[in-house]
């Protein structure tokens, strides 16, 4: 493709209608050529995919099978000039290969490879007639670029759809508010706390405090991987709001890393009661509520 310089381009024909007609004719010729050399070009493409070490998650047979259908779809898109079928195929393909760990660069890579393979074959075919080659490329390149674009965008969209779906799933993994004893609630938080989730969490907790008439709440954040000042502030707000409803909050399970981060960024947690682990938190809560847990042996002699 480096042979095609700006000055080598043919001057624009006066009639755009005539040009589009000739483009259509050229594309037809191109498609006929690609149909004719289907086997050979397909094999060449599959070879180059393997050589470039793309799609390593798939076996050679699978690559060849996919290459065949991509090739046919590609030629069809060139022929018809419509991209719906290709789009649908790209989506379908993405659905199948994303779970197998195929990366974006691989998908873009293979489509560009196909583009190169086909362009090379066009060079080989028309190398004697430079003007014709240029016109063929003029017809081929926009279509090929559009195809590459369609496939890449389809893949990325599918990925984003999956990501959105997973985020939704995580959000919907409701954070349960559990009653351990009368007037004692536990709120285990797992995963990432973003503003939206923090809000939902606080509302849920406040409602639970009222319905269960809770006096003490233990919030366990063992499952929270990271904490920044935002998350810490959400936590402080939750604690404050609970206090306004008359409930004491004990926060447990701050990992050493989180403790260090909080001290480093200087979040003021002095208003918050913290206990090392969930067990300690529950024991402290029981103490606040006036419970005392005894082993049966300790009680038995009296009974």
């Amino acid at each position: 493709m480096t042979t095609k310089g700006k000055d080598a381009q043919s001057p624009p024909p006066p009639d755009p209608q005539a040009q589009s007609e000739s483009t259509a004719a050229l594309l037809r010729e191109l498609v006929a050529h690609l149909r004719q050399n289907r086997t050979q070009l397909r094999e060449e493409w599959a070879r180059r995919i393997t050589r470039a070490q793309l799609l390593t998650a798939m076996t050679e047979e699978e690559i060849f099978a996919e290459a065949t259908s991509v090739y046919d779809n590609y030629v069809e898109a060139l022929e018809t000039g419509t991209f719906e079928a290709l789009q649908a195929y790209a989506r379908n393909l993405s659905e199948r290969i994303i779970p197998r760990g195929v990366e974006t660069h691989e998908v873009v890579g293979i489509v560009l490879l196909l583009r190169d393979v086909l362009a090379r074959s066009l060079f080989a075919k028309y190398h004697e007639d430079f003007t014709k080659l240029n016109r063929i490329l003029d017809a081929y390149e926009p279509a090929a670029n559009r195809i590459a674009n369609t496939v890449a965008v389809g893949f990325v969209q599918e990925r984003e759809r999956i990501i959105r779906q997973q985020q939704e799933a995580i959000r919907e993994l409701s954070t349960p508010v559990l009653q351990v004893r009368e007037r004692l609630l536990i709120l285990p938080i797992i995963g990432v706390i973003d503003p939206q989730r923090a809000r939902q969490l606080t509302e849920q907790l406040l409602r639970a405090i009222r319905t269960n008439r809770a006096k003490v709440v233990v919030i366990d954040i063992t499952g929270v991987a990271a904490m920044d000042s935002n998350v810490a502030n959400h936590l402080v707000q939750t604690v404050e709001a609970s206090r306004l409803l008359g409930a004491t909050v004990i926060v447990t399970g701050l990992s050493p890393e989180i403790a260090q981060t909080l001290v480093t960024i200087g979040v003021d947690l002095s208003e918050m009661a913290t206990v090392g682990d969930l067990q300690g938190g529950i024991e402290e809560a029981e103490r606040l509520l006036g419970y005392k847990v005894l082993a049966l042996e300790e009680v038995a002699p009296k009974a």
Partner: protein
Amino acid sequence: MEVPILKQGHYLIASIQSALTDADLSQLREALIERVGRFRARGVIVDVTALDVMDSFAVRTLRDIAHMARLRGAETVIVGIQPEVAFAMVQLGLTLKGVSTALDLEEGLLFLDHQAQLRIERGSGRIERG
């Protein structure tokens, strides 16, 4: 609208029934503080269950009531803050620092009883709870 203030044993109970103007709030403050002395009250309960909005003036007045009553020898507890109101207050940074809160009137009474108990025990030289 004037807020009715009931006397119940050693406690005064002010039950807010509807949204209050700033003047009503100030009036409530004056009335409560005056009555703490008149009835020798040991505790004050302000019930805000009926309020679905709490602005900064209301929060400040409640805090003032608590602090003033403490100076006059009575413990104050605010009861019945709705979950939504609590959430909004925290978002606005109105957190009633230093003021006791309880879920509802019943809890508030228990809280005051408990405080009184502590005081008596402290007075008799025992600090531990029974």
